[in-house]
């Protein structure tokens, strides 16, 4: 029983972290609260599902979906997020504008998806990666994969941000974008790449969620909601915080559904959110950000 709870908790934590990673990264690097990130990932997942239905090669299906998500993510960054952010000279007013604009997109996306794909539910039917036994508990290949990708998403950025010059420049941009421009950093290019990576991770999160659970038109909004909740609790923009919160939520959700029943999952999650906001309003591991 304890093992069951732990294994489920870990795989949930992996997915939560994947979903919140894009939100965290975009906010951490550019200060952009992009609420459309969930629907962007979902759009890619829908493309993959449709391609799978058409019996295309699995690799091609995944590539098409990933490409679509990255393209949509970058286009939204360039034509919605950045113009809105800069319309009143950036800062907190710019952020509010981005929230309004991308919230609008969040509401718009389900209708667009329904019109394009002519369906509400989508099942991700990827080839099975097998079922494994760990500590007398069975775990599917995709659950393992979500844990693995989440770990990689934690370790790789940590290495890039602390050990490479490019990563150090990105940290510089988060602390002072103007000074970064003066020392010759192409800040806009960094934002574009960030938006692409955020869209890609949102897509991977959506695919794994769809493989383990299922996808529907509202899933994108739910991803955004979870992504932001986790990001806010962790300390907006903090990758370490997002990982910690993902583990906490994974554990609480898993324990709740095993011990008292799945109905209470959301109540417990919301309670945790409220407690964190009361006792650590800047998040569990706040980031350092100057301007």
């Amino acid at each position, binding site marked *: 029983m304890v093992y069951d709870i732990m294994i489920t908790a870990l795989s949930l934590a992996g997915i939560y972290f994947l979903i919140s990673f894009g939100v965290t990264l975009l906010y951490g690097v550019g200060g952009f609260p992009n609420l459309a990130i969930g629907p962007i990932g979902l759009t890619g997942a829908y493309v993959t599902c449709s391609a799978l239905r058409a019996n295309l090669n699995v690799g091609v299906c995944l590539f098409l979906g990933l490409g679509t998500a990255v393209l949509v993510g970058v286009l939204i960054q360039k034509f919605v997020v950045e113009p809105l952010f800069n319309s009143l000279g950036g800062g907190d007013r710019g952020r509010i504008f981005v929230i309004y604009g991308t919230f609008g997109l969040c509401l718009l996306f389900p209708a667009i998806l329904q019109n394009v794909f002519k369906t509400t539910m989508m099942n991700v039917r990827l080839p099975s990666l097998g079922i494994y036994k760990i500590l007398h508990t069975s775990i599917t290949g995709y659950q393992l994969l979500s844990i693995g990708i989440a770990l990689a998403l934690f370790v790789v950025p940590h290495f890039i941000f602390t050990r490479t*010059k490019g990563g*150090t*420049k990105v*940290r*510089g941009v988060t*602390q*002072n974008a*103007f*000074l970064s*421009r*003066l*020392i*010759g*950093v*192409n800040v806009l290019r960094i934002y574009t790449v960030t938006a692409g990576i955020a869209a890609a991770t949102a897509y991977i999160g959506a695919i794994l969620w769809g493989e383990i659970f299922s996808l529907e038109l509202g899933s994108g909004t739910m991803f955004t909601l979870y992504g932001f909740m986790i990001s806010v609790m962790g300390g907006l923009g903090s990758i370490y915080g997002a990982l910690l919160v993902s583990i906490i939520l994974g554990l609480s959700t898993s324990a709740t559904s095993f011990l008292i029943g799945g109905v209470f999952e959301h109540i417990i999650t919301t309670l945790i959110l409220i407690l964190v906001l009361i006792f650590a309003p800047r998040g569990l591991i706040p980031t*350092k950000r*100057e*301007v």
Partner: protein
Amino acid sequence: MGNFLLEMQDLTVMRGDVLVLRDIDLNIKRGEAVALIGPNGAGKTTLFETVMGIHKVVKGDIRIEGSSIRGMGTERISRRISMIPQEFATFPFLTVLENLWISKNSSRRKAMTDEIFQIFPALQEKINQEASTLSGGQRQMLALGMGLARKCDILLLDEPTLGLSPLMTQRILNSIKEISDRFKLSVLISEQTPLVLNISDRVYVLEGGQIRIQGASQELKKDERIRKVYLGMAV
């Protein structure tokens, strides 16, 4: 014409609907230290930022060694000109070494830092400390070091002694003089302190977006009107 490393001609800049700079003519020779003085709001910072390609030029031209950089992006200009902004001139949560590392064009972490530490030994002791933990003077030294690390031959310094104690002001100004002589840099430095006249060759006085007075530092130093009006010195 080819005599000047950096020249501005009839430079006119608007920010929104406001005319901030009007018909600026300003030149710097190779290896020359030029001071730009003037009250707050005179347009000194805008002038620097315009050279760096941040603001749009309405009229006139900016040239490096005779070729125009008007309309060029900041990324390209920053390879020729290094600007140290007035405030927030360092990355607060990067270490001293990281600040220098990302400022320079070479990708090697340690290259060029030895020369910088020779001029500012205080920085070497704090090499792995975050910039936010440094004192105001040390932070300004780091900012100068970052400017040097870029290895440009033109250095723009926007009020580098703002908020520093008189003693530290003197030290920073002396280091600027040392840097400019040692590396044959052309330096344009905006200041409000009269001490800048001691380390500069020539002076431009900017007021209301226009150059009002210009001349050799040694001569303007004696000018009673300049001392009183622009540098706030008690006579």
